[in-house]
């Protein structure tokens, strides 16, 4: 009887999704859907938070007050994105603390891109241009996903990411039109960030274990390869406009498909970073762990104070 109920509920669930309806927290959903969403949303939230570190690395050294203010505002936005996303995840009956502990224990992942170092100021421009640019391509899709709270969080996030991307590209354009040293810094940053940015969309779908189910339930609407291609098609003309060379000799426009063909991605590097062996994996987790440890007494105090006030009322 129960099994039959389940089948009927699943059918109803899938037909709602096919009709383009949003699934809301109180609606029935298959356990797999809930699990997949928690995994994706928390990974996304952790990425926003860990992503604060590489860019935060340059706040104190930003070369002008305007740049300092806009970089700080940007990194602050990323903290905000983390908050919206943790809240979206919490609608699925997990709490933020649990998710953060999964991050710190290494059980939960975050985007591999944030395990690369920011070595010169141009990295700040290039991250805005490539990394926020790639995030926009991905999140524009996620803003249309079937789970209501996640869809709405992404809608909100996308607006700010667009601003980040414009700001990053503007730094790149300014430096590319600047002194010889500035041009060298930009080219160096582009050389380092281009391939890791292409990896942000994840491996090809036939090698991506979760893809089929996510597509069927409209958690994702496009394949990783489609999104990657969209990003390349958008970014190549932007690099030409500022006279910066993307480090791929095989980049070629295909008139027939109207897409830019690109060279082979080094997936070995990607998996290596995902497994924890990237250039900054240890530093990133150590920084999050330190913030968490150092903040423990503060969080305890806040809880104790609230309890005392409640008792006195």
């Amino acid at each position, binding site marked *: 009887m129960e099994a039959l109920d389940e089948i009927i509920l699943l059918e109803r669930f899938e037909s709602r999704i096919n009709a383009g309806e949003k699934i809301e927290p109180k609606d029935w959903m298959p356990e797999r859907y809930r699990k997949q969403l928690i995994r994706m949303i928390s990974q996304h939230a952790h990425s926003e*938070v860990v992503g*604060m*570190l590489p860019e*935060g690395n340059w*706040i*104190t*050294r*930003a*070369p*002008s*007050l*305007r*740049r*300092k*203010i806009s970089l*700080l*505002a940007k*990194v*602050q936005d990323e*903290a*905000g994105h*983390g*908050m919206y996303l*943790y809240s979206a995840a919490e609608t699925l009956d997990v709490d933020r603390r649990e998710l953060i502990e999964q991050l710190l224990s290494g059980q939960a992942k975050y985007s591999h891109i944030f395990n690369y170092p920011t070595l010169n*100021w141009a990295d700040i421009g290039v991250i805005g241009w490539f990394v926020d640019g790639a995030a926009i391509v991905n999140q524009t899709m996620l803003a249309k996903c079937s789970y209501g709270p996640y869809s709405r969080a992404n809608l909100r996030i996308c607006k700010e990411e667009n601003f980040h991307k414009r700001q990053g590209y503007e*730094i790149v354009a*300014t*430096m590319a039109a*600047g*002194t010889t*040293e*500035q041009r060298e810094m930009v080219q160096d940053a582009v050389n380092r960030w281009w391939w890791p940015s292409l990896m942000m969309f994840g491996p090809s779908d036939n090698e991506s274990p979760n893809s089929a189910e996510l597509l069927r339930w409209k958690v994702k609407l496009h394949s990783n390869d489609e999104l990657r291609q969209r990003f390349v098609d958008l970014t190549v003309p932007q690099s030409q406009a500022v006279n910066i060379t993307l480090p791929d000799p095989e980049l070629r426009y295909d008139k027939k498909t109207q897409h830019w063909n690109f060279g082979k991605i080094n997936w070995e590097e990607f998996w290596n970073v995902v497994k924890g062996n990237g250039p900054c994996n240890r530093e990133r987790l150590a*920084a999050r762990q*330190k*913030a968490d440890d*150092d*903040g*423990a*007494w*503060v*969080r*305890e*105090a*806040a809880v*104790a*104070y609230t309890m*005392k006030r409640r008792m006195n009322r």
Partner: protein
Amino acid sequence: MKNGPDHRTKNVLVEFLFRLGDDRLILGHRLSEWCGHAPILEEDIALANIALDLLGQASALLRLAGEIEGKNRAEDDLAYFREATQFTNLQLVEQPNGDFAFTIARLFFFSAFNNLLSERLQKSSIEALAGIAAKGFKESSYHLRHSKEWMLRLGNGTEESHQRMQIAVNELWRFTGEMLAFDEVEEKLQQQNVIPDLNPIAPKWNEIVAAVLTEATIIIPSHQKDGGQAGNHAVSGSRNGFHSEHLGHLLAEMQILARSYPDAKW
């Protein structure tokens, strides 16, 4: 400038604006160091918000100082190409962040001061300054509220948080004296009716701080049995460019890129 200062007033006014601008620049910089490392995400956001307000005020104040000075120095020239001894910010704001209690207690002390000062500077005869102060008054009201809430939480929270807050307040107390002391710069500006009388700020500040510390069950250092040890070694001189050793390091980091490529536009 419509209500422009006369020649006599100009130099003291520039000096005064440097003080205001430098305080906010250096504290904004210190608070920005927390971004990504705060005890909770909400506080990453709040501290960044406050840092952004202060850096915005600093930009506007230094820009105005440069305009009045008339030596063709923009706000970035002033922020990035002056030496430590040319900065006139308080030693309070240049101190390293310490733990969260230290950061909060300093923010509370400064915000209470900033709020009282901005409130008065809204009445400056220099329109541009009055405008910046009006914005600063609103912003610092929020900074004061936010830091006060944390003073109460930490003071009344756990034994550890209480202890940390008491230590922070004790350590910071010696930096508060010069914050509340005004010299001939402010006096001249007041005589020339450029700014209102700032002398009521000190007693008001003491009142606000005493009330919050009491509510936070934190002992006010000057009321301590040892006669306020910490207060006896009060620092002074930063309004004339005398600093702790911390400022030089802060500036070395802040100015590195701008100074390494002085011809570059960013």
